[in-house]
């Protein structure tokens, strides 16, 4: 049994799975249920100034479905907590008293003046919260008021607000980043410069889900009008993983602990984030789709995986895959792979043939000796992995390295030594 206990920026929790700041952590009732289910920590739904904000009494969510009505992505326009601050503070204090071993993080979003931060940070900290998470990510509603993503898109603002939080807080400060930027590094770096103890990412992505086909209006609407929301769930995971890995592999930010967020639905998703540099993970959408019980699979799956890999602890897994992430220019151009189709597993659907034929390199047959048969034509195969990616049968098509001999496509010998674009003769900037 692996040790799942987690320490994140000095904050202890019995496992690395926190509920992200969002509707599931809006009040004591939900948080109690989450802790009873086994979650390691919660980031309480974002607190703001009194009087509290007001939410719409219409659709706040909509989803993108698979055909089987599995939720692939979720969009929301809910704002920060709409309850009076004191109610939240009282409930947080009680929760921390009742669940001392769990992590309780206070998410905050405050206007950009130091006086406000000086006023609120201490009274929130007084609840016994283990840390702060600064919400610089929320992309809808609050950003129109100069908060949330409006701050998170400007490195100078991030640094300034982080400095204020650090000035008035004694507990660790985590800065939550918005993905609605062209490059995550400047904003992550700004958080670090402001003294952040950690960053968390990603917050939600600007999005409109679709159109209502009857009314030809955007969907969903409140009284006929709609507003862009924040997109999350499985669909955003690859975007989040890229941003996490960028921070983890960049020298200036590599030492900042990362709390990974974005589309974590099962333990494998958690492994992705941890291996690419996150020290713990936060979950929201999957809980909002299936309830808190998913924690059972998250913890047992991760535990079994860590055991199977002989890693013993979560921290031993953190960052394992980071060294494998690099820039394109450093990829080995002498390396050659060819697709291989396992004829025993092939069900002869022909999809590999038609996608290769129509959209790629005409490197897969449809007929061999008069029979329906799909085989790779090595003379044409560039090793692009499209057939592997779209084959409906797991393990049927695999990529195999050519280690020696002649590549039948290029007619050139396979070279053992590595060669990259940086030195390639076609590169006008070659060294």
């Amino acid at each position, binding site marked *: 049994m692996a040790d799942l206990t987690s320490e994140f920026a000095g904050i202890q929790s019995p496992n690395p799975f926190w509920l992200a700041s969002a509707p599931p952590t809006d009040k004591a009732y939900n948080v109690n249920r989450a802790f009873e289910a086994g979650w390691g920590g919660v980031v309480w739904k974002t607190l703001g100034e009194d009087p509290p904000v007001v939410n719409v009494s219409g659709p706040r969510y909509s989803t993108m479905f698979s055909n089987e009505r599995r939720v692939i992505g979720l969009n929301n326009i809910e704002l920060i907590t709409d309850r009076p601050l004191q109610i939240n503070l009282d409930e947080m204090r009680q929760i921390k008293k009742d669940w001392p071993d769990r992590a309780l993080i206070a998410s905050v979003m405050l206007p950009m003046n130091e006086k406000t931060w000086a006023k609120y940070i201490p009274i929130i900290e007084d609840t016994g919260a283990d840390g702060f998470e600064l919400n610089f990510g929320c992309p809808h509603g609050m950003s129109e008021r100069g908060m949330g993503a409006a701050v998170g898109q400007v490195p100078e603002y991030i640094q300034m607000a982080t400095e204020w939080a650090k000035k008035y807080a004694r507990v660790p400060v985590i800065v939550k980043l918005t993905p609605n930027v062209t490059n995550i590094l400047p904003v992550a770096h700004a958080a670090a410069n402001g003294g952040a103890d950690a960053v968390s990412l990603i917050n939600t992505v600007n999005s409109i889900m679709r159109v209502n086909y009857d009314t030809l209006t955007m969907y969903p609407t409140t009284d006929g009008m709609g507003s862009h929301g924040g997109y999350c769930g499985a669909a955003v995971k690859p975007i989040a993983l890229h941003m996490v890995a960028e921070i983890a592999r960049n020298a200036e930010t590599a030492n900042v602990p990362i709390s990974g967020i974005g589309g974590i639905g099962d333990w494998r998703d958690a492994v992705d984030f941890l291996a690419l540099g996150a020290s713990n993970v936060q979950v929201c959408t999957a809980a909002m789709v299936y309830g808190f019980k998913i924690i059972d699979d998250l913890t047992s799956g991760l535990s079994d995986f860590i055991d199977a890999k002989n890693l013993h602890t979560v921290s031993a897994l953190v960052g394992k895959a980071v060294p494998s992430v690099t820039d394109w220019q450093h990829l080995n151009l002498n390396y050659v792979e060819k697709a291989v189709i396992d004829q025993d*597993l092939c069900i*002869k659907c*022909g999809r590999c043939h038609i996608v290769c034929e129509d959209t790629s390199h005409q490197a897969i047959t449809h007929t061999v000796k008069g029979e329906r048969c799909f085989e790779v034509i090595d003379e044409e195969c560039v090793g692009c992995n499209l057939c592997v990616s779209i084959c409906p049968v797991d393990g049927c098509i695999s990529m195999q390295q050519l280690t020696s001999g002649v590549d039948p496509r290029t007619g050139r010998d396979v070279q053992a030594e590595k060669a990259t674009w940086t030195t390639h003769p076609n590169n006008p900037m070659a060294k």
Partner: protein
Amino acid sequence: MTDNLATERQADIRTGRLSDAEIEQNFTDKCPPLSHAEALIESDRCYFCYDAPCTEACPTEIDIPGFIQQIRSNNIKGSAQTILTENIMGGMCSRVCPTEILCEEVCVRNIHEDKPVSIGLLQRFATDPIIESNTELFSRGEDSGHTVAVVGAGPAGLSCAHRLSMLGHSVVLYNRDQKPGGLNEYGIAAYKAVNDFAQREVEYILSIGGIDVRSGVSLGSDLSFPDLQQQYDAVFLAFGLGGANKLGLPNEDIEGVLSAVDYISDLRQSENKGGLPVGNRVVVIGGGMTAVDIAVQSKRLGAEFVDIVYRRGAKQMGASRHEQELAQTSGVTIRHWAQPTRILLDDRVTGMQFERTELDAEGNLRGTGEHWSLDADIIFTAVGQTFTDEVFGEVAGDFEYQYGKLLVNDNRRTSVARTWAGGDCIFGHDDLTVTAVQDGKLAAIDIDRFLETGQQGDEAWQT
């Protein structure tokens, strides 16, 4: 089963064996339609194969992955258009096609999970709303001035007439029966096409216009083939088969020995199924779909003991494995390797004697000399129907035949000028609705080619 040839049993045949409620329950939809949610999940299972094996296996060459993709995108009308363009009877075929030996047999899903995509049910999901709402998907072509006679309003005749109308030709559709539909109306088990689906589909097909249906008119007795040839620009023959085959045993006309085809027809046309006389012990002779249909329906009407006796084994039965299983799960006993040798009787039938059969060294069927018998109140014969050339009268010799059926070329053209044929009356036909629809479609396309160009097209039809 008994070895006692002389039986003391009283015949037990009566009406109303089951309550109306039980009858209604027994004759509900054998395979209920998919809900929208089920259809979406099932459609997601389709891999959208390249050059799909299912389409290859469909006698009407429906673009199956295409119509399933259209269901996925909630383009139900487009899906129905894809299906009905190739097979105007896609609705009935979704109910009666033996999909397990056609499209679903070759579905690539079988390879690893032994569970094909439910293509038949998806096809029904797409087509039912179109027939239900009588949504116009096809329109009559610009009038060509040509008129074609179609003989027989079964699947082949209706398919041909519809396609000819789309192509702008006028059609006079002669039908022996009072209702159009052929075996869809008179021959298919009631639980396969509930709620008068066969007639609703016919109405949909005829709603294209340009098809003049003349019912109660038989070729041979009411109209002659030479007259048809003279009056029309082209003739399509799709009058099916003649009378039911007989067992060839003495006393076959005695009370209690019935033709399965006739009884199924009565059952289909009956307003009150409980009013049909049903035997308690029913023996069915034959191994095809008709044998299964009459056996299962007898059971559902309240017969207590129903046996199908077939002279060869399960593999050789004309009824598909799926149909055989349906019979068995309905409580029908299927007995293989026995042929009828004697009708047991007093003043009516009391049972039937059989002889065990086997294959000799050359693979020919022979009796073993060992006999056994079954008690029976009713014996149904379901041993096929025969083509009869009497309908042609004096000109019967003008046609070429093979194994007693009309010989046609790939375009369904007969050896007689301006004459095409399809459905059960042609050689090579496998007695499926879907094949008949394809015959009609191909013939119509070739007739159109002929009428528009005056060319025989495929001159060497004989090859």
